[in-house]
């Protein structure tokens, strides 16, 4: 168990704000190619921040592991997304 840090909560809140924005203007991204990969990458980041906050309260080890696993998932998905859109010229247009 580690002590709760306010900075982690701030990250989570900002992430929740971005999530709210996404859900509100989801239709505006319809034309972005491979959007699901980008969203999954963001959701993974968001989960990591959630687990970062939770690890201060319950199941530290598991939460910590999950936090870092989702960081990796997020990074890998982002890399795949960047790779795919770079191969599809004008995909975002």
């Amino acid at each position, binding site marked *: 168990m580690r002590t709760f840090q306010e900075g982690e909560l*701030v990250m989570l809140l900002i992430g929740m704000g971005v999530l709210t924005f996404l859900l509100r203007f989801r239709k505006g991204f319809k034309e972005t190619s491979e959007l699901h990969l980008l969203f999954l990458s963001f959701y993974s980041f968001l989960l990591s921040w959630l687990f970062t906050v939770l690890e201060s309260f319950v199941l530290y080890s598991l939460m910590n592991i999950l936090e870092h696993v989702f960081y990796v998932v997020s990074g*890998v998905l982002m890399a795949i997304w960047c790779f795919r859109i770079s191969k599809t010229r004008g995909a*975002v247009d």
Partner: protein
Amino acid sequence: MSPIAFLDILFCDSVAAALLIVVVRRRRIPGSDSKVLLAALLVFSLLYGFFLVAEWTGLATTWESVEDVVGSLVAMTWGFFFYSLAQEASNRKLAAREQEVRDSRRRLATLMDNLPGMAYRCRNDPDWTMEFVSVGSVALTGYDPEELVENRRVSYGELIHSEDREAVWDAVQRSLEAGGPFHLIYRITAKDSSDKWVWEQGVGVFSSEGELSALEGFVTDITHIKETELALNEARRKLADILNFLPDPTFSINNAGEVIIWNQAMEELTGVPAHRMLGRGGCEYSVPFWGERRPSPADFVLKWDESSAIREYPALIREKDTVITEVFAPALGENGRYLWIKAKVLLDESGKPTAAIETLRDVSSRKELEKKLKKAADEYQMLFSNLPVGVITVDADLRITRINREGEKITGFQSDEVVGRPCREVMAGAMCDNSCPIRNALAKRSPVGFVEGDISHRNGTRIPVRVNAGCLFGGDGGLMGGIEVFQDITEIKQLEEEKAKIISMFAHDMKSPLIGIHGFAAHLLSHTETLPADKKTQFLEIIGRESGKLESLINDFLDFSRLNLGKLKLNFDLMDLSKELRELIETFEPRFQDAGIRLRAKNIEELPEIEGDAPRLRRVFTNLLENALKYSESGTRVTVEAGETAREVLIRFEDQGIGINSEELPYVFNMFYRGRKLGHREGHGLGLAGVESIVNGHGGRVMVCSVPGQGSVFVVALPKSREAGEV
């Protein structure tokens, strides 16, 4: 190395790879702001990853607060990145819409420029002040749009033909009040002063408050259509004039069966004016003819139905797209009229039926004439066929063209055997070579009459004929041929022979008593003084007896002749037939007794009184009794028997005398006929002829039957009254 550290390093590697891709392939990464933000996101993420790794290298406590700051930057960069993506997508949509609008405007401009007319937006004022005019105005009015907009040079209202301005204004205002579009056809005067017909369609444009803000519409040049329409109307008017001028009643129907033409002659024929019939369908046009609706030949040329057509018009003849028939229209006129009808389908350029035209002709007069002509021909044929004389007609080459029934009978040839053959082959008469009457008539061009000669029957028999011949002239006076009338005069010739024979026999019969009278008279004259008185008396008795015979002969002959000629007048009166017969039998009985012949009367009493000439009937009965006495042998019997029927009294004279041969029976009533086996018996052959003449003169008849060697029976049938005799 702990698994967490491994995961963090893996995270850093992934992010670094992504950043590398973005950097290396930045030109292929779309967007501008979002691309920068993506790079920033990756940089911050990588930095954040370094801090995560740093936690495991002992630097965590030093950089922990910085890590949270970087984490917050990452979160915010996600937000900015997403915002940028959304913004760029929005911009792209906007750009696409703008492009769409530009394309639409370009298409609209192209459309406007290529419209065959002028699109406009104008105010609802008497000048029709234009706010927008398409370039089509140049072709339509001759003015550029700039010259028309805001009435800079001329207002559109001024272009409208002065005669049409008011009508245009009224029509537009009415449409605006009704809230609908307006469609107008009117004239404008173009810049070059030419008048044009235009068609306009427009609509009022209203603001959200319901205020009329403008009129928008389209005007196009229809001058050529209007001119075509005017030319078409002119052509139709001319056609109608021509049809009206036609003497034959004519009407036309369109594909829907509606009357489109009903000419003046049709009005006169039916009494139905055109305005009452035009546009009517459902076969109403047939009512004036038939008294009911029924398809006319025009309907059948439009839609051919053979079974119906033949049922309705049995005499209908179809030739391609035309039908012709003759019918009796019972409802036309007082007693109906005969009509000759011709109907034809009218086709459009593609060959499709568009209408049908039907023309009629009243042929009642012709029909009546045909009937009269047929009747006259029949009468002529009947007359020609039934003439009691033979008739042949020949052409100018003397070839037979016709022969009548009597002619067939006389020549023995049938009509079809002789028509076309030379006359001389058929007639084959003695006159053919030198004195052919018909040839002479044709040569002289005048009739040749009453020539007697003979012709040859088919079976070779020579037949005496009496011939009249004449010429046949055509209507133009030209010689067409000749006609020969020939009468079989065989009977006339026989009668002439008979007449000569009768005269000869009469003279011969008169000669015997005359010779006796003459001889005794001459002897008396030459020996007047020497002859003793008894001789003189004897001679005078002989002369008296012979004179009596002569007188009797002459009386019989005269009676016979007069009766035959109808000059002898019988004196009819009521007579007691029983009394006459009784007295006659009483008179004859002594003579029969002297001859040894038994005379018997049977049923002669109570005979009814009849109307008759008593003296002449007495001569009839006397003659028959004289004959019975004359031709019966001694020991035989003669019976006079009477009877009656409802209308006649029958007196039967039966003897058992020598009888008459069956070959001679038909001639026993002929004048001067005497049987061949009469031997020494006296008779001059006038008795039975006189009997028949007198009985016939009473309206009765006399009959005979006989068996040679067994006797004869003569029956006199006399009518009870003259009326019965006439019946």
